[in-house]
């Protein structure tokens, strides 16, 4: 199991992610974000940047994690290819963003994401595994 799907919203877009573990659901949500920005454009994982974020609960951690990916792209030009979440403990997430230097000619952007929101934010566990939903501001 596991994966993500994009959710329709009148003005913006959402991501619904599922995985067997909490770490996995954070990775799937990040893949959803990459898909909103770049569609299916292939991006190579030639660089790796460590990430550490804090949050009061798993929802705030998820917003923090995705905001960090957005920041690395926008300010440091890291086009994201894939993601690693090493651990989520005591309100801290440690992970890595893998990708390559953003090159608009090879990485055409589909949409600019302004921010990750708290709107209908939810991270939960049920019998089938972990599940998360969030919306991004476009």
């Amino acid at each position, binding site marked *: 199991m596991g994966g993500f799907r*994009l959710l*329709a*919203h*009148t*003005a*913006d*877009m959402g991501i619904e992610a599922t995985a067997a573990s909490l770490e996995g659901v954070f990775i799937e949500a990040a893949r959803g974000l990459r898909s909103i*920005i770049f*569609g299916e454009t292939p991006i190579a994982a030639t660089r790796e940047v460590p990430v550490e974020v804090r949050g*009061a609960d798993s929802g*705030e951690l998820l917003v923090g994690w995705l*905001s960090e990916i957005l*920041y690395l792209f*926008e*300010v440091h*030009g890291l086009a994201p290819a894939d993601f690693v979440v090493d651990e989520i403990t005591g309100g801290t997430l440690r992970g890595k963003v893998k990708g390559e230097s*953003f090159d*608009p000619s090879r990485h*055409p*952007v*589909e*949409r*600019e994401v*302004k*921010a*990750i*929101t*708290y*709107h209908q*934010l939810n991270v939960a566990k049920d019998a089938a595994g972990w599940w998360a939903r969030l*919306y991004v*501001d*476009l």
Partner: protein
Amino acid sequence: MTVKIQQIDDCRWRIPREGDMRTEGLVFADKRMIAALQQEQALEQVRNVATLPGIVGPSMAMPDIHWGYGFPIGGVAAFDAEEGVVSPGGVGYDINCGVRLLRSALSAADIRPVLARLADTLFRNVPAGVGSQRRDLKISVSEERKVLEQGAAWAVSRGFGNAEDLDHIEARGTLPGADPELVSDRALERGRAQLGTLGSGNHFLEVQEVEHIFDPAVADVLGLFAGQVTVSIHTGSRGLGYQVCDDYLKLMLQASRKYGIALPDRQLCCAPLTSPEGRQYLAAMAGAANFAFANRQIITSWVRESFEQILALSPAELRLSVIYDVCHNIAKMETHEFEGKKRRLCIHRKGATRAFAPGHPETPELYRTVGQPVLIPGDMGRYSYVLVGTQGAMEETFGSTCHGAGRMLSRHAAKKVARGHNIEAELAARGILIRAAGRATVAEEISEAYKDVANVVEVVQRAGIGKIVARLRPLAVIKG
């Protein structure tokens, strides 16, 4: 959850006070709009805003209301300066997203032969889309702090446009009280490379033609005539504003807990206006708003250069001057008369425009007899409107009115409608040239994705909270 709604007249609807609501909701809309609204959560959001402490008057929504984050888009809410709160969710991520309108001495016929070249040049000179920036505009951190303090005046001091431009900008392009020290390094970092950029999504730069004048006397005062070329710039504070909002949402989540403010939705987090957190947000927000004013001022200068380049005319011949520049995502301290008393209020306008009546001291002298110009962009395939503020808006909406068309279709749905169409070719056949940076932009921004802005301004005029002056149709559209 269904929201109770009662019709007051043909353009007003009341959400009666119940449960935790401190006041009632008031929605400006026609019957069809209300039916569509009941499919989404926007009305629930109007009701949620009514639960916040210190709200004065109803929690309001303009006819372009749609589902936002925390506050609905199209939301207007006033909070008492002593008892009330300020909420970053009541302003939005794109702080001081707004519209600027330029008039010219040209007629559409003058530019028709060079329109494609003009569109290409504007697209080249004004960076649009992610990661795009001008190499000749690099600013240091200390310079960026000045942008935050001074707004459009900073841009003028660096040679972008002229001092007269400032006379025709809301708040003269500088919100007072901005404190760059309260803006995070990360926000400054995100903003630095994005000053003088359009952005993407619904932001645009449009060359337009005045298609119809509804009120010749007012149009004359605004310097508008039928067939005239105008230019609209719709953008905001870019990554800097998004980051300020993000940073302060985190602070406000803590502040809401600290001050015991019950939140029906996390995105409504807020702090008392008198608290350190509330004051800090307003000072950071003012900085982001000033960044946006500077951004539109810089782009104006590049628009002028592009016209001069392609038409080989001097600035005096082109006369590309600012009609007005409005914010439509902002919180401002204003004095309004409410129930017979003058009150100091923090007016949140999220996807709503200030619309001060004739005679208001904050309206530029040139327009004081007709009211503050209000600029309402539509979609890229139809038209935009110019309105002026009214006494009705002063009395009922704290001097506020609508801000645009409002989306109707999700991006998924818009893409589905666009499938099988060559949107650019279809628009070109109707005399509208599109230049877009983003791959998905054109399909997702099709006319069908938006409400017809004509219906929105019609409701506003019928309700007396805005007066229609002119309709502008696009000739060339630059999108991110």
